[in-house]
């Protein structure tokens, strides 16, 4: 049931997947086992940490840290708990099912964090100038009708997964940046990422936002047009690493070691995938090829096109797993202004910068 092989445009890439991506549930958690041996060489018993994450390419640095034994070397025994969608990861942390999570910063996430139940401790995926992450995808009909640039989205229909999702946020910020009224955009809630893309493909909506690995093949086959990249207009922190206040109180040491291993994973990841040449093209060399097999243990397993999909799908991570704390505060502010986040805790109260660097 390897859906990753069969539906490349929908599941490939680093989707932070608010909505359905369909990982193989049978692979959950057991992948961490071979490294138990390494961990055993430490004097101390390894600290168990349950990490909640999406079964996509987006948490790639965690895969690398796990496969290269960085967690084990720090004396933490990390178990991956894979989720179908981003939102439940935060809820699982609140419920005590996971210790640490990587997920999208959404209205729902902030509402949970505003109750004091969650703390953001580090950065993960970041929209970044020059790194083609999320594309603004326009339907053929809308493109023909003149929607050829992000500024022309005013008054158009736009598919998002849900109110308060990253997509909702991106549309709002794009409108701000391009100088048109966000209220003029007709938002169409369609729940899942595949639905968003299908809605543009079939012309039921004018535009949406899709990750590069989904948007590029569509544009290439003439089923839509890419009119811009989110990272070029509104660079921002899409996903972040978070934990619970209880973890910070009681197991700060384990968290610190977890964070160090994660930062090593990010360093390897950046070395493998995020170096650009003088022309701004990604450099692919032996370092890259050494990292790819670590990832194919988790995504695109057995897919002959895995390499191309990974190279086309990797997204930007800040050095050291740094958190764009200013941007997180800006996001919280935006969601609150929209009436989507109700609480009144300041951003500083939901962020803990004691474990990973700040951008």
């Amino acid at each position, binding site marked *: 049931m390897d859906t990753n092989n069969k539906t490349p445009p929908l599941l490939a890439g680093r989707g932070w997947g608010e909505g359905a991506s369909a990982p193989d549930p049978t692979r959950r958690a057991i992948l961490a086992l071979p490294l138990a041996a390494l961990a055993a060489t430490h004097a101390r018993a390894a600290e168990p940490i349950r990490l909640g994450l999406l079964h996509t390419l987006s948490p790639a640095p965690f895969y690398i840290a796990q496969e290269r034994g960085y967690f084990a070397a720090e004396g933490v025994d990390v178990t991956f708990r894979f989720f179908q969608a981003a*939102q439940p990861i935060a*809820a699982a942390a*609140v419920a005590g099912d996971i210790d640490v999570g990587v997920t999208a910063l*959404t*209205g*729902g996430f902030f*509402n*949970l964090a505003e*109750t004091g*139940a969650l703390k953001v401790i580090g950065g993960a995926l970041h929209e970044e100038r020059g790194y083609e992450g999320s594309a603004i995808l326009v339907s053929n009909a809308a493109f023909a009708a003149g929607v050829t640039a992000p500024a022309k989205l005013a008054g158009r229909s736009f598919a998002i997964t*849900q*109110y*308060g*999702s990253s997509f909702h946020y991106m549309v709002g910020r794009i409108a701000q940046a391009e100088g048109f009224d966000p209220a003029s955009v*007709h*938002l*169409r*809630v*369609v*729940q899942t990422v595949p*639905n968003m893309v*299908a*809605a543009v493909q*079939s012309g*039921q*909506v004018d535009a949406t936002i899709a990750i590069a690995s989904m948007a590029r093949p569509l544009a290439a086959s003439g089923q839509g047009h890419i009119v811009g990249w989110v990272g070029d207009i509104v660079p921002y922190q899409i996903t972040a690493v978070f934990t619970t206040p209880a973890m910070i109180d009681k197991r700060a040491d384990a968290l610190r070691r977890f964070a160090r291993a994660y930062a090593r994973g990010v360093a390897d990841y950046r070395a493998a995938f995020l170096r650009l040449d003088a022309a701004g093209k990604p450099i692919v060399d032996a370092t890259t090829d050494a990292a790819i097999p670590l990832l194919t243990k988790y995504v695109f397993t057995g897919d002959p096109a895995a390499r191309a999909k990974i190279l086309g799908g990797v997204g930007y991570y800040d050095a050291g797993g740094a958190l764009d704390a200013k941007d997180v505060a800006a996001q919280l502010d935006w969601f609150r202004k929209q009436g*989507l*986040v*109700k609480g009144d805790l300041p951003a500083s109260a939901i962020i803990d910068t004691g474990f990973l660097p700040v951008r």
Partner: protein
Amino acid sequence: MPPPDGSGAERPVPFRGGGFAPHARPLLGAATLVVLVALWQAGAMAGLIPRLFLPAPAAVAAALYNLALSGQLWLQMSASLARLAGGWSLGTLAGLLVGLAAGLFTLARSPSLSVVAALFPIPKIALVPLFIIWFGIGEGSKIATIALGVFFPTVIATVGAVDGVPRNLIRMGQSFGLSRAAIVAKIVLPGALPGILTGFRVTAAIAIILLVAAEMIGAERGIGAFVLAAGNLYDTPALLAGIVVLSVLGLLVSWLIGRLERWLLAWR
């Protein structure tokens, strides 16, 4: 059985006929709800029930109040009511026609019943993406979702109700020389009406349940869409407020059908 003292003296016959006859005590039912809500509120105020797990009734009421005050409630309700009315009417009309045909004609019976048996168990939510391709992202797919959910139970209820019309009444009609159409109009339909109205109770509830599924995709307004958005935002007071609205809607519809029954089935 001899009496304990074996004397055979005169003694009262013990009463054995009690129980097994629960009475309806509407006040008791209402009081139970009030006490539960009060306990819940007290628990929340005492800090025993964290806001994150279950918002206090007062918070839910406040969310409901704000919803009503801002005019949102009516906007969301009117969109949902239009979909419910359209979808339910469409599904009911089609279901009645097919159910009557299956109940009356040999040629229609097996084909339609086998199709119903094959398609009824399909979760309509799973068909939503297909409906979007067929009927678009607008009202069409939403009405279709509700209509389809209502259609199958209506067929089943109607066929059962028609089958349940006493044969002797139909023979009576034939023996009086009534035309086929007159027998259907004057005997089969009124005879099937109680069963059909019971079906309405079920299908009205199904329509409300499917409202959330129908409004999953592309709905700007609607109670279902509102509940989904609130859930996605973990705005639990709003979520519960939406659920209260849905539940009140259910009560209202059930009450309306009760009135309809009392009016149409006065003869019972």
